[in-house]
């Protein structure tokens, strides 16, 4: 394959790379006054990347000797990453201007992080995978600590870093054994090699998987590898929290799914059990602990631990047979819904924080009076996370649980836990709603929203509503996007 067509297939990544470098240069070159426009430049870069992805739609091939794959699955998650970042950038302008002296680096970092996400989802080889993963992690560490004068931000960053470094090192150690067992780092080749005659090597695959899961689980923030996330989420600047809770998490899922499906597909019965157990612990722990959180970001951290569990249900109960409710479809569907819903919530949190400087849940009392727009939309997103009809969240949960029920007793157990904990989740989501609507709250003026959060919130709400009313297009998109290159029959 010639270089040109390879580059064409890498065009989304190239757009972001060039864009990130451009922002970096402009940040150095521009005066302070003009730097304010950097967020628009970043937005433009991201928006430009969307058609780049769209143009590749339907392609399914492996490039650069298998280092990268371009398949619908990767493209879908690239869309998720870009979409998340667009929304995050929409919400971060005012936020950062209030808190950080320099904002240019932030946009560079988040563009790099998006690039890293996209690379991760497209990695077809352990080498590129590890690299992209670390790329994402390193940019995330810095972003979490972006408010470098803020104790919480820095503390969150260092904890995130230390946890991430160890987790990824363990993953790497696992990768080394995988390499040793198969003599290759290419995912497809690994799968082929593991089908070879040596039983003892086949046997090695599972312990290796355990080590890999430490890294993936960290990225996804699924219990018991979740403990960094509440601290990092709370400490991080809220836009970064938003990014971590969606883009980073979904990237982790994409990588997990690709590695497990492509390289370890034969071992599904085993890893499905492990991941299923993780899912159960996540759902219970995340939702129960979230009940007690006084800080909304921290609450959302635990909530997203719980949601990692729900998404995981879809993955562990997936089958390669065509069924109406394929678990993988469910994961993709859930991911998209989760994107808009969760980002919507974080945009609301950002807007509130911009106005009041508080992330304490009790300060949300009387929000309905202060800003009906914000209160109604935040309530709507919370209901979406609860799974109430006419929100995307309902169909996402529906789909995931349906796939679980189809998967026999274990799936039924997962679904039962999921359903039980989603009621628990309603408790703390509703608590916020209660404060906003039922409690008059102390005096406080009307809240004016910035343009960015306003646009972002409206966009997220409209899309969530559209999915909630007519999910068919998204289901179609998701079901075409589960095509993953290199899955051995």
């Amino acid at each position: 394959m010639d270089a040109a067509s390879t580059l064409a297939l890498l065009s989304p990544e190239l757009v972001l790379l060039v864009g990130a470098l451009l922002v970096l240069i402009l940040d150095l070159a521009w005066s302070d006054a003009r730097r304010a426009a950097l967020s628009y430049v970043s937005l433009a870069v991201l928006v430009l990347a969307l058609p780049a992805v769209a143009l590749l739609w339907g392609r399914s091939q492996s490039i650069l000797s298998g280092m990268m794959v371009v398949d619908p699955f990767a493209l879908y998650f690239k869309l998720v990453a870009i979409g998340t970042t667009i929304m995050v950038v929409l919400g971060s302008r005012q936020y950062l201007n209030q808190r950080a002296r320099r904002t240019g680096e932030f946009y560079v970092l988040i563009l790099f992080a998006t690039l890293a996400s996209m690379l991760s989802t497209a990695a077809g080889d352990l080498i590129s995978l590890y690299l992209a993963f670390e790329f994402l992690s390193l940019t995330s560490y810095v972003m979490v600590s972006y408010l470098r004068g803020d104790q919480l931000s820095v503390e969150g960053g260092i904890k995130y870093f230390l946890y991430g470094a160890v987790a990824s090192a363990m993953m790497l150690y696992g990768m080394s054994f995988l390499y040793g067992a198969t003599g290759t780092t290419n995912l497809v080749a690994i799968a082929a090699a593991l089908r070879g005659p040596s039983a003892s090597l086949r046997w090695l695959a599972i312990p290796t998987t355990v080590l890999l899961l430490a890294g993936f689980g960290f990225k996804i923030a699924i219990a018991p590898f979740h403990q960094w996330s509440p601290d990092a989420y709370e400490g991080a600047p809220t836009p970064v929290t938003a990014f971590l809770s969606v883009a980073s998490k979904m990237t982790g899922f994409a990588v997990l799914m690709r590695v497990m499906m492509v390289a370890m597909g034969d071992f599904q019965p085993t890893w499905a059990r492990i991941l299923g157990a993780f899912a159960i612990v996540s759902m219970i722990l995340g939702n129960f602990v979230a009940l007690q959180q006084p800080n909304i970001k921290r609450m959302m951290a635990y909530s997203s631990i719980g949601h990692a569990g729900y998404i995981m249900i879809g993955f562990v109960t997936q089958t390669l047979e065509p069924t109406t409710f394929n678990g993988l479809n469910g994961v993709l569907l859930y991911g998209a819904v989760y994107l808009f819903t969760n980002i919507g919530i974080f945009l609301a949190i950002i807007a509130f924080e911009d106005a009041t400087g508080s992330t304490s849940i009790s300060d949300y009392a009387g929000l309905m009076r202060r800003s009906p727009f914000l209160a109604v939309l935040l309530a709507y997103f919370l209901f979406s996370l609860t799974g109430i009809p006419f929100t995307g969240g309902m169909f996402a949960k529906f789909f995931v649980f349906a796939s679980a029920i189809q998967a026999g007793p274990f799936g039924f157990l997962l679904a039962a836990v999921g359903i039980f904990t989603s009621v628990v989740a309603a408790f703390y989501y509703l608590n916020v709603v209660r404060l906003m609507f039922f409690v008059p709250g102390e005096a406080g003026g009307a809240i004016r929203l910035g343009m960015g959060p306003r646009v972002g919130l409206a966009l997220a709400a409209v899309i969530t509503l559209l999915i909630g009313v007519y999910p068919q297009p998204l289901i179609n998109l998701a079901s075409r996007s589960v095509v993953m290159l290199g899955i051995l029959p």
Partner: protein
Amino acid sequence: MGFPILSLVTFVPLAGALAVLLLPAGNARTIKQVAVGTAALNLVFGILVWTGYDRAAGGLQFQEFARWIPSMGVHYHMGVDGLSVPLIFLTTLLTPLALLYSAYTIQTRVKEFFLLFLILETGMIGVFAALDFVLFYVFWELGLVPMYFLIGIWGGSRREYAAIKFFLYTLAGSVAMLLGILFVYTNTGTFSIPEAAATFEAIRPFASNMTVVSLAFWGIFLAFAIKLPLWPFHTWLPDAHTEAPTAGSVILAGVLLKLGGYGFLRILLPVFPSAFKYWAPLIAALAVISIVYGALVCIAQWDLKRLIAYSSVSHMGYVMLGIAAGAYGLGAASGQDSVAIALNGAVLQMFNHGIITGALFLLVGVIYERAHTRDLREFGGLGAIVPYFYGFMLVAGFASLGLPGLAGFWSELFVFRGALAIMPIYAVVGVLGIVFTAVYILWKIMQNLFLGQPNERWLNLPDLTSWEIVSLAPLLAFMFFFGVYPTPIVELINTATTALASLL
């Protein structure tokens, strides 16, 4: 397909809600007019559904079908039969009355109130008209959110607690139902309720899949039992009913509880007839406990609204008893007619309880608006001060205790008639309930409110105003009308229950 009357009756309130949304919040008067007008218009459609339904033909009518989420096999499938028509009518009747009453009493956050109320109506009617599991579920949950806000914003002193309790209970039930629905889907491959009913037991015979099918059965059961509410899942109800604003209580007791009973008959009985039959004794026992327990707890209440709330537990127990007896009698020697009678009684009781308890809650609202207390110990002698109020309460109260000549009697008669033929012991114990009911209606309510020397405090209590009478009179008229001439509604219901009676 024809004229989409069901879509109309379902979504007209939603359109009204949109209209309210677009009106400026300051214009309370217009908002109220639009809301009440919409609900009144919908009553016309509700009447059209009733009158347009061909009783001779029976079965599902006015069916509408459209592809919705074809890849999931989920469709927009609406249709009504003798079970749904009275309940749709009940909904369209109670909503404008409750809204009319609210138009005079709700002064804060007017726009939100009427907006939510109209959405609520769409949700409720949607449940009664949906023939697709997912559609059913969507409407089912849709009713949850507005009621949560109605209780939480406009409710009494413990409104927040009551609202969240209501929400969580119902949500817990509905997610359990979701599991059950998905289980049915997994086995039948369809989300169509009639299709699933036709095929499920053939695919998964109860006799050979007892554990699994029972699990699914109880999952769905839980949702409806909580909504109904059946002892011991009733504890959300006293709080929700007591704390809700008057119109909210009216709709809660009048319609929302019926969603549970309706669910039993629309989904659980047709899809799981054998499982239902198998578990019917246990369910009937719970029903009887509800009846007696609810009535006894009523006797100990001093808060008028809470008392009436508990009376719902007792009265909805009749519904459950009728349904459980009907299920138990399927294919049994007692004959199909007994089953049909029991089910007739259950559905009729739902309708009657709707109008009777709706009226009672309106009356409680009336007295609370004036006296700002609901403590029965503080009243007395009102009979001489507010004769209209006394009269209305008297009629509603006696209707509630099942006095012949008023609507409540027929449903109790049918329920107990059906139950006695099928499960006599339960019926005999249940009859205790009608004695206790008399105790709390006459002793607690009538005596404490109206009898005795007039209390100095209430000498200037104004009697019912004209708009209160307008809100109440239709309900009382129906109590009398169906009390002396229940034939039209029984015939309507009978078309559906006869079909149910031949299930096994």
